[in-house]
């Protein structure tokens, strides 16, 4: 079975939202900056609730922020 992993466009979306900082996004989503760094780097897959909060912070549907794709590894 092919291995899939959660990927995200957070870096791109932050750029399109006036270079929103990781700290600002963390504050809106109610998490620490370290968690945003881990999610953005693909090291941590967030819970569904946190994924919705991040999508809400950008004002886009969750599918535009996260996707479940076949991984490189």
């Amino acid at each position, binding site marked *: 079975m092919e291995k899939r992993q959660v990927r995200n466009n957070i870096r791109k979306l932050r750029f399109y939202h006036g270079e929103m900082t990781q700290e600002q996004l963390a504050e809106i989503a*109610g*998490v620490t*900056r*370290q*968690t945003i760094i881990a999610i953005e780097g693909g*090291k*941590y897959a*967030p819970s569904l609730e*946190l994924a919705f909060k991040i999508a809400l912070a950008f004002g886009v549907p969750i599918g535009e922020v996260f996707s479940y794709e076949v991984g490189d590894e």
Partner: protein
Amino acid sequence: MSTRKISISVSLVSTLLILGYYLFNLIPMFQKGDLNSEDIFRLAGIVIIASIVLNILGNILTNIVINIVHAIQTQSDKEVRLIEDERDKLIGLKGTQVSYVAFSLGVLIAMLTFVFGQPPLVMFSLIILFSLIAEIIGDLSQFYFDYKGA
């Protein structure tokens, strides 16, 4: 360095200090071969109480120092956001799990020494020793999980 990493470091350092104190007092007892229950139980009591007190004091002092450093850096009296999010909780839980496994193995080893004819005080000393080692392993594993992502 995040606030959680600092508090894990404080816990790690305090446990290492207590472990050092415990071994410093325990090893001479074993070398002399005069294991008496009064000394062993007193030492265990000191270690357990010191562990609790040092962890509480360490956390309080860490929070104070973090707030002072933050105030100096940002030149504002706004408090630092000390939140624990889902990833922090997950890392904490995984660390506790690793700690439990390490402690269980330690208890098993201590039991084996009793089975192989060592006095009960040796078993008791080893259980205290492995509880400290398990805490250190748990703290180190939290660093690893934090580095890995979760």
